[in-house]
């Protein structure tokens, strides 16, 4: 019996050493490289990790806008460095109020269809958090060409300002307390579709 125990023990020890070696190999073979920077991708239906939600246009500020989904475990205090060919653009980012998982960044417009490298850097320490390569898409072209009088603030002037250049505000608008909702008869509606059943059940019915 004792004679049999020797080889079994040997085999077990070898197996354990082999497994330990296998798990250590990645650390032993690349001693000079640090941890890799996570790649960011486009968001899916129910995102769980940092991802790029969409490209957009802030036509009022004449900026491009990039929005991200940020999970609760990640920092939201970051900015972007965007590389387009030889140019580098910096985009400042902000958390959408009331939506802790939504961060959007704005900066100089980049032509539609361009392939860009996005680097996400933490504001404190400027460390690279994540990076990815994307093609700028799904951005609409600005429609009208209107000269907006400068107001000195980042607020869009009210309609009256746009038209007259003064800072008048609509009397109807100001007389309405915040939260007022007015229901109007659908006289300006097109003959369309039957409204979808409100308070719908899940479909397909489980």
């Amino acid at each position, binding site marked *: 019996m004792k004679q049999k125990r020797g080889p079994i023990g040997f085999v077990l020890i070898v197996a354990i050493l082999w497994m330990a070696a296998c798990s250590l190999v990645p650390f032993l073979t690349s001693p000079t490289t640090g941890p890799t920077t996570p790649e960011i991708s486009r968001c899916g239906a129910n995102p769980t990790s940092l991802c790029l939600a969409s490209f957009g246009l802030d036509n009022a500020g004449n900026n491009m806008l990039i929005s991200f989904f940020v999970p609760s475990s990640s920092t939201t205090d970051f900015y972007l460095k965007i590389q387009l060919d030889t140019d580098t653009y910096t985009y400042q980012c902000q958390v959408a109020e009331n939506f802790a998982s939504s961060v959007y960044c704005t900066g100089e417009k980049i032509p539609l269809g361009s392939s860009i490298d996005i680097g996400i850097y933490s504001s404190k320490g400027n460390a690279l958090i994540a990076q990815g390569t994307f093609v700028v898409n799904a951005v609409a072209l600005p429609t009208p060409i209107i000269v907006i009088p400068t107001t000195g603030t980042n607020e869009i002037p009210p309609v009256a300002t746009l038209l007259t250049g003064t800072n008048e505000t609509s009397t109807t*608008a100001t007389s309405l307390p915040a939260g007022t909702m007015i229901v109007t008869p659908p006289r300006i509606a097109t003959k369309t579709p039957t409204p979808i059943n409100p308070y719908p059940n899940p479909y397909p019915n489980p």
Partner: protein
Amino acid sequence: MNLLFDSWQVLSLDKWPILVILACVSWGMVITVIVLRSITDLNHNLSEYSSLALAGWIVPLFPVSILVFVLAVTFNIRPNLQVAIAGFILSLGLLIWANRRAEQNISRGSVLTLVTLLCLFLLSTFLHLAFISETPLPPYIDSAQHYLIIQNLVKDFTETNTLKNFIWPVPIYYHLGFHFIAALLVATFQLNIAKLILILGQIIVGSAAIPLFFLVKLETGSDAAGLIAVLLGSFGWYMPSFAVNWGKYPALLSLQTIQFCLSILYLIGKYRKFFKPHWLIAIGAFSTAVSFIIHTRSIILIGIGFTAWMFAGWWRSQKFKWRILLLGIMSGSLLIESVLINSNSNLRSLFDPYFGSAVWITGSIGLLSILAFKKYPKFSFACLSSIFFLLLGLFIPIPHITDLTLLDRPLVEMILFIPLSLLGGLGYMTLSNLVSARFIGVRMISTFLFVGAIIVHAFMSYNFYPSDCCVIVTQDDSVALDWLDKHTPPTTLVAISSTELRITASSEHPQTAGSDAGVWITPLVNRPTFLLPFSTDFTRSDTLSFLCEHGISDIYIGNKDQSFNRALVEEKPDWYRNLLFLPGAQIFRVIGCK
């Protein structure tokens, strides 16, 4: 595993609001039991009291919210953590005082039953927390309204100095019970309104079916039958928990008070021969008033329960042949109602939760209820007739109010689980009595299989996450709303899309409500909004004139089926200028006014 992980993540991230709400629920439960014990001669065990108190916890909390509100707006005593702790200590004093008065200690009853009930409540609540992991805001259009009301009430709790300054939180909204309680918690514990609504909703859903135990236990004397009813109500169908997707928070909360009121009515009926139930009547009346303030239609539902019980008593007193005839008429009428509902496009989806993959559960209850009639005829008939009255309520118009009926489709759809689960509990008890004591093994195996099948069904088809149908705020909307807040003046009047709500049998003059993320502009961004039909043709000159006349400066376009048609707006670049474009949300400025 994802479900457990998501629930756990919500629990760890939002432990403070969860703890606060659970503490309030526990406080309300303790007070309910103390009051019932000290002013009545009731002597039930801990399981029975716990299930009843889980329905009634809101009854003592509501007057507290009103009292704190009055103190805040008249004497400038603002709710805060210190006041809350003082209140808690005061109520503990009451607890000790009341316990001294109580002659008997509460009997513990079966520990296993108590633990099972507690586990069902905690497990159900824990699993439902996963819902919050996928939505930052409570879903659907109603939630925006609830948010706004709570927001305005919180201002009153924390800022208003006199009752004169008090403004009704929103026009055309009448039942504010849920909102007063939510506002009290927000103001006292400095909670986020959206988070509070979401968590409170999931805790209400987790506890919605627990009170069913009380009625079934009292009627059958069986803990097992009570637990079967709770299990059916919790996981048998996707209602009532799916109603959080509709933002029906007041209606969900009223399910608790309705069950509490019906239980009190049952107790009055049960004990009136032994003592004069004056105090029980007083508690029942007060609870009904609270329920009415939480959700106006709950008074109709309590009335239906009461009428069904009285009707069943009368039916029970008839001769056997008349009883059979009446039962036949009742069943036939139910069938006719079902046909009428199925032929009405506004009501057709009412039975969805109870058929589909859950048809075997509903079918089993149908079979079990035949047995239930044998042993518990009055209670079973009361359940059957309450279903009849609930469906009938969909067709009875409210006098002088156009198109409104006593009940609407979503509410009836939500509440049908109560009579069905009660019937299931009674039927199970009858079946297990029928199986001879010699075949106790068969009884245990069949119970195990039935319970197992419900649990497997729940895990296969139950969705603990928000439904795609009802999430109206997307990632792009969140950016657009924030952008609107930071880039437009506070007086900006924004046009948002709306649709018709057809939830009653008649549809000539349907109600109107917002139909995409635009409904959140006022609550979150504090800009007034203007509802326009989602099918508004923005290319027409009279539309532009209309916008200009009413001072509407911006148009918000979301990404739902019933959002405005962007193509129509873009067709007129001289009239509308795009300010913000995201694939799922756009904001246009009206520039064509002269």
